[in-house]
């Protein structure tokens, strides 16, 4: 699976309250949640983000509560992939489970990038390419099992397929 898109850069410890503030949790609709995604830390994000854009973060992206609304809001905003130096573990699971591609990237990537430039991400090989100069960064390749969940559109769809085959 190859993804190409424009980068939105974020720092360390972007918590689930920043991704989707608790005041909007009464909804579980991704489109509604997306309207408020990153509202408190990047007010222009929700309005300007384009279908297919990528998020690049620092350490411990998605820390805080276990709310699934956080990856849902990001997915609802049309973001194609989240790349970060590291993720809080329940956010990581939740992202995979709802079918949002997510990659842990090497240190240098976040430092090298400027906002708005474009990346190509090869999920299976874990290869991240900067389109401006062709330089490459190697992330841990996306394991086939997770690729399968993402391809099906999330864990529930994956389970649905599995049940059919039992």
């Amino acid at each position, binding site marked *: 699976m190859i993804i190409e898109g424009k980068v939105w850069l974020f720092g360390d410890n972007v918590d689930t309250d920043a991704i989707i503030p608790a005041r909007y949790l009464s909804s579980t609709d991704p489109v509604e949640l997306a309207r408020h995604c990153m509202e408190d830390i990047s007010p222009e994000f929700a309005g300007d983000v384009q279908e297919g854009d990528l998020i690049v973060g620092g350490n411990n992206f998605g820390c805080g509560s276990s709310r699934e609304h956080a990856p849902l809001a990001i997915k609802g905003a049309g973001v194609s992939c989240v790349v970060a130096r590291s993720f809080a573990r329940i956010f990581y699971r939740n992202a995979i489970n709802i079918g949002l591609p997510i990659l842990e990237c090497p240190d240098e990537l976040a430092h090298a990038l400027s906002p708005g430039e474009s990346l190509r991400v090869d999920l299976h090989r874990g290869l991240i390419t900067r389109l401006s100069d062709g330089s490459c960064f190697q992330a841990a390749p996306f394991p086939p099992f997770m690729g399968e969940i993402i391809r099906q559109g999330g864990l*529930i769809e994956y389970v649905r397929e599995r*049940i059919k085959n039992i």
Partner: protein
Amino acid sequence: MTGQTMVEKILARGAGKERVQPGELVNVKVDLALGNDITAPVAIKEFTRLGLKRVFDPDRVVLVPDHFTPNRDIAAAEQAQLLRRFAGDYGIKHYFEVGRMGVEHALLPEQGLVRPGDIIIGADSHTCTYGALGAFATGVGSTDLAAAMALGEAWFKVPSTIRFVFEGTLPPWVGGKDLILYTIGQIGVEGARYRAMAFCGPTINNLSMDGRLTMANMAIEAGGKCGYMEPDQITFSYLEGRTGGPFSAVYGDPDAEYEQTYHFDVSRLQPQVAFPPAPDNSRPVAEASGIQIDQVVIGSCTNGRLEDLRAAALVLKGRRVHPRVRLLIIPATQLIYRQALEEGLLATFIEAEAAVSTPTCGPCLGGHMGILARGEKALATTNRNFVGRMGHAESEVYLCNPAVAAASAVAGQIVHPEEVVR
């Protein structure tokens, strides 16, 4: 080839493999899947999308309405109703109604639902508590729970393991809570992110099951995927008469590889107090002395067990809560509540002018039963002291063990228990 840790061996067994490596992704069979009145409704909604007539095994799904129960408002009542109906429709054996209910992570071990070597997932971050019995147990999201209810499986990245070796005899008034607060203080809230935390050494070998449960409970506060003690005689005595079925305990190999090993000499450890706003902000109680408090909470899945209530009663016997302070005592389960009644602990609490409540998470997550106003300070035996955790965003929570909490309730300010009990 080197040996494997307990967690690696449990996950290998669950995945039907000879061995697994840290970092490897595995799909494992789960022995138990847990949800509560906050997370299960979302999971039930997802599960319903699958159109299945049954869950993978009605005896292996556990539903505990403990967070906002007894129902705090209409929305909570409707969530609880959803759980109750689902449990009825799908024949869920381990559904615990108010009156039989307890805080989930105190309840499951007590009811014999946790066994050494088990793989347990729960849509609640403190599911890691069950590692105290030598199980692999970890918190997941609601969709994970939905999938597990359907297939009886969950996927994991095999964690590497950090080992914590504790040595020395614990001083009076120091217990499992102090060991874990101290540990988190040493490594930080991210110190064990994705990792398993192995607690061992002579101090742990002598630690009670209640103390071990307290420690494993807070592994998540260091970012850990799980925390555990390998099973021993204390574990087996605890399990006697609780658990029906056979189980097979799993032990790490002597040559297992640990990512890192910490050695802590705890023979002079002081009771610890974690200052706001994070559990890793822990210091010896002496550094907190004199901080005035408005509310004290003794309870939760961290420290609401019988041993905790006994420690509090020892301090409160024949004393009175400071006139400026509200002391809330919440036995973690109905059984603990009853035992506390039979042992006379409840009488001690009530005579000391504490408010004693039926089991609930209540104030631990700022749900109900003891919310803080702006500017108020609480001292609690719970596990999180993040901004606004117990109420107003400008209220504060300090964390400590039950004896420190009880003594401080009497003194009206944070004190070492020996200042109250001489």
